[in-house]
């Protein structure tokens, strides 16, 4: 016999609900909730599911364009038209808290969750990205988290068979104990294949497919919406789910096969808040009601209570609303794939979410009020006190470098800048035969060919089309955001768009992941608010509307909050194969050109504020970050694309972390042909005519809106005239060739052997981990 605990103020508080929220629940129900209902409200009204602290801010994002087929917030992921009747679905999501507690499974199930969001839309997932943040690798605990997260992502993605094609990893003390694991997935479909997460058609049966429900992942969404504490690891381990990529692969194939039959009225994955979220959201979207009986839900553990079944986040499960009379098709397909399935309920016209157990009424909640009427909070914000110190920083406090060669090597070996081959070698980044540009260049490029699509009802991939190329990048320099939330967030968007432009792509859309500390702290809320403003303005400037994303708050540990990290993932289209451009120098004799200014003299810090150089060489994380002018930046991207389209660009690399010095070094050393086979190609650079007052700023300042390209000398005149027509600054700074990187300046000549640059850059992370 099941005895539910009495509803006490303590129990309400334990569920993360405030007394006001509890009153609101009582008003909605016209009575006090029972234990199961309380659990349901607590997960649906968590930040993770309801965005109750951020919804007013998110309204500022641009979310429309003529290419958007499914917009932000409508469904599990946004969808964008890419022409020829094809479309892409993509989204980013966080799994920070689970990964802090159990890195391998936390990261693995993050990948599983975002893949489900994509195939729920009817799309076939074709590539994944991730954005990771950890403390510093000198700590054994950080190394454990880092290696656990990377192998968790590898485990899930590799087995599932999706290429993990790009990403970024930063290391900073603020993430110690609270790593960030943001995972992204992109899928492809035809316009007519878009599936909806709506419980349409009164009387239609509701199916549960996928593995049985267990006690794992109980109330994970609520857990994700709390601060991490010392005790979290022990107490919350049960809130971390266990992933089974094999199962997910089968569930996806079966779901895509089922969708092709046309018998599906609505489909939604059971992600955060599991059965609870999928039932109430599908009903709310369709304006219907839904009734299920838990006794029919496949269960892995004996004697599970309704509370446990409704809140379980067991993985790889889907809820499917089937057109009445076509139940047999579900059975045939799921039997073929040896997958469990069960008919658990039906769609009603009552607007209520009704849950029974062996016929006994357990839950009776208005579905739309639960899904859409969570409280909304307008939190107060206050400029963080530390910013005043940041603004006071001037360059007089540090002396100019006298060891530029050593600085360059140190920066290349700095883990946030060093090659991430130790990471991406563990990911299968080539499966599905579409990886045109693999990890290691500014953007990844994936091609869309016929088998990227889900099958049509006739068992074919449908009419032939010209293969398409999609470029992807994910970026966020959180140090900038910490030092100036608005400007930093703008730069995150600009850098992402710049990376796409460098690969020859034009942006289509953006998905963002807002990782912040506790929003009840006005200083944190200030970071959040200003960041969202910066992101919104950036996305508008590059015509890359936000199609969806994720908010992860309460990212802090006992030592304080993380650096504000609004991760930006942007997707773009490359119109022709010939436009695909990579970052490394190609041919001896090519002319090296800097698009943009060698140094931004209007910046009193000469691009050094928040720079990698200040952090790595001087141990300073301060200074106002470089300014970014969006008009100028947009002009640069358009001009760069025009040069690429005209066939004038041999390589293009965005100038960001580590400034011009690191960018040039990367152009020389970053092409990897095969195992132990880098292609090193030197360069001679002449900056003697540059106005720099300081050598460190000249080499390592991070002034924005700059790209290093290389141009065939025979096409230099054409390139120059194209650039001048486009109004972008075109500085010839050197020539490709030799086995040295030589940078001449009015201060002195900096010369290094390429092998001496490659080794620290390529091996730094591997060495720290072995």
């Amino acid at each position, binding site marked *: 016999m099941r005895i539910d605990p009495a509803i006490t103020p303590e129990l309400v508080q334990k569920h993360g609900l405030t007394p006001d929220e509890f009153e609101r629940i009582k008003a909605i129900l016209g009575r006090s909730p029972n234990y199961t209902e309380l659990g349901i409200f607590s997960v649906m009204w968590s930040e993770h599911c309801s965005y109750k602290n951020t919804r007013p801010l998110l309204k500022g994002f641009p979310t429309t364009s003529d290419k958007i087929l499914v917009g932000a917030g409508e469904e599990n992921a946004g969808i964008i038209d890419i022409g020829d009747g094809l479309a892409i679905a993509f989204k980013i999501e966080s799994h920070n808290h689970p990964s802090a507690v159990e890195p391998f499974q936390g990261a693995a199930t993050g990948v599983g969750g975002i893949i489900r969001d994509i195939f729920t839309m009817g799309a076939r997932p074709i590539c994944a990205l991730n954005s990771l943040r950890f403390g510093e690798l000198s700590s054994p605990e950080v190394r454990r988290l880092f290696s656990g997260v990377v192998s968790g992502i590898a485990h899930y993605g590799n087995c599932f*068979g999706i290429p993990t094609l790009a990403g970024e990893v930063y290391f900073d003390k603020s993430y110690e104990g609270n790593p960030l694991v943001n995972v992204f997935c992109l899928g492809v479909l035809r316009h007519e294949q878009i599936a909806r997460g709506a419980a349409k058609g009164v009387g239609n049966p509701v199916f549960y497919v996928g593995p049985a429900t267990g006690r794992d992942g109980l109330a994970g969404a609520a857990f994700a919406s709390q601060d991490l504490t010392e005790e979290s690891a022990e107490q919350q381990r049960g809130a971390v789910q266990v992933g089974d990529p*094999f199962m997910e692969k089968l569930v996806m194939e079966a779901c895509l096969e089922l969708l092709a039959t046309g018998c599906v009225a609505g489909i939604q994955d059971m992600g955060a808040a599991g059965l609870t979220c999928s039932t109430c959201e599908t009903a709310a979207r369709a304006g219907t009601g839904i009734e299920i009986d838990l006794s029919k839900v496949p269960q892995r553990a004996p004697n599970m209570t309704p509370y446990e079944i409704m809140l379980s986040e067991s993985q790889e499960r889907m809820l499917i609303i089937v057109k009445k009379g076509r139940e047999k098709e579900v059975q045939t397909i799921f039997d073929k794939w040896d997958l469990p399935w069960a008919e658990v309920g039906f769609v009603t016209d009552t607007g209520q979410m009704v849950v029974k157990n062996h016929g006994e009424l357990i839950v009776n909640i208005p579905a739309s009020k639960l899904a859409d009427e969570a409280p909304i909070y307008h939190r107060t914000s206050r400029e963080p006190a530390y910013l005043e110190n940041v603004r006071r920083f001037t360059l007089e406090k540090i002396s100019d470098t006298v060891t530029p060669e050593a600085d360059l090597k140190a920066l290349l070996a700095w883990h946030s800048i060093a090659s991430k081959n130790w990471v991406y070698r563990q990911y299968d980044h*080539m499966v599905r*035969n579409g990886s045109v540009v693999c990890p290691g260049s500014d953007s990844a490029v994936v091609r869309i060919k016929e088998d990227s699509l889900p099958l049509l009802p006739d068992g074919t991939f449908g009419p032939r089309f010209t293969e398409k190329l999609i470029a992807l990048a994910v970026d966020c320099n959180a140090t900038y955001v910490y030092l100036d939330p608005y400007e930093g967030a703008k730069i995150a968007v600009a850098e992402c768009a710049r990376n796409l432009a460098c690969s020859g792509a034009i942006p289509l859309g953006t998905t963002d992941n807002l990782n912040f500390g506790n929003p009840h702290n006005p200083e944190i809320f200030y970071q959040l608010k200003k960041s969202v403003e910066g992101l919104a303005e950036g996305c508008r400037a590059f015509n890359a509307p936000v199609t969806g994303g994720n908010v992860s708050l309460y990212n802090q540990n006992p030592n304080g909050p993380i650096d504000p990290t609004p991760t930006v993932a942007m997707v773009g289209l490359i119109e022709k194969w010939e436009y695909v451009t990579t970052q490394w120098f190609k041919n001896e004799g090519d002319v090296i050109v800097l698009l943009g200014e060698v140094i931004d003299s209007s910046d009193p810090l000469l691009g050094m504020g928040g720079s990698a150089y200040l952090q790595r060489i001087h141990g300073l994380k301060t200074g106002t970050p470089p300014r970014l002018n969006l008009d100028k930046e947009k002009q640069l991207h358009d001009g760069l694309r025009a040069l690429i389209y005209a066939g004038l660009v041999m390589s293009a690399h965005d100038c960001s972390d580590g400034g011009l010095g690191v960018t040039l070094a990367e152009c020389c050393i970053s092409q990897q042909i095969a195992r132990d086979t880098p292609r090193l190609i030197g360069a001679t650079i002449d900056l003697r005519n540059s106005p720099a007052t300081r050598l460190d700023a000249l080499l390592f300042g991070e002034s924005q809106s700059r790209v290093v390209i290389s141009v065939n000398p025979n096409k230099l005149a054409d390139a120059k005239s194209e650039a001048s027509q486009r109004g972008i600054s075109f500085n010839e700074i050197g020539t490709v060739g030799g086995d040295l990187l030589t940078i001449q300046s009015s201060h002195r000549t900096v010369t290094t052997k390429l092998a001496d640059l490659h080794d620290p850059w390529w091996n730094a992370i591997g060495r720290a981990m072995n």
Partner: protein
Amino acid sequence: MNFAVLQFPASNCDQDAVHVLKNVLGHSARLLWHKENSLGDVDGVLIPGGFSYGDYLRTGAIARFSPIMKAVQLFAENGGMVLGICNGFQILCEAGLLPGALVRNRSLQFCCERVHLKVATTRSGFTRAIPENKLLQIPIAHGDGCYFADESTLGELQKNDQILFQYATPQGMLTDAANPNGSLLNIAGICNKNRNVAGMMPHPERASEGWLGGTDGRLIFESWLQELTGRNKPSAT
């Protein structure tokens, strides 16, 4: 030619294999579900990469019991040509169609990168079109690719010229540093004694189009096609 590409639950390079055989090389290739009992009218069988059954027990250990594997066994016994790539190689070893086993990489990590392969013999239906002394660049992507066999088996492999590919340096040397997974004798691919069944860890289907960074993998498919041309079809089952 007609190829069957086997599809186990969680095969994930199945479409890639079909794509290359069909769209790149212009032959007929179809997916064949593992629960089928018959191969139908085929000239060659390809067992693709992936994680059949999640590889939770031991790579290939469950897949070998799938109904289709009986037909593959018979096809091979009758001289039919079978190529296993990555998980396909693991399945062929588990099924006893190839000697030895593939165990966890020495690094204990999954490893995805392009490697250099020395072609140890061109005297096989899977390597005959490869120019002498040509070093191949083909990607690997596996967690369990360390080839292991006892000494007498290794001796047999060498004596019978059954080693097809070995991990090598860019200069073609068989060094330990060039070995990405700890395979004995740097073995990346072998064939059976009758030379009609082969397995390899590297993925030739990922190196068959220039845009994806190289076409060395095509030489393996082209060898196979050459060998099949002018051959009698083995009795299909």
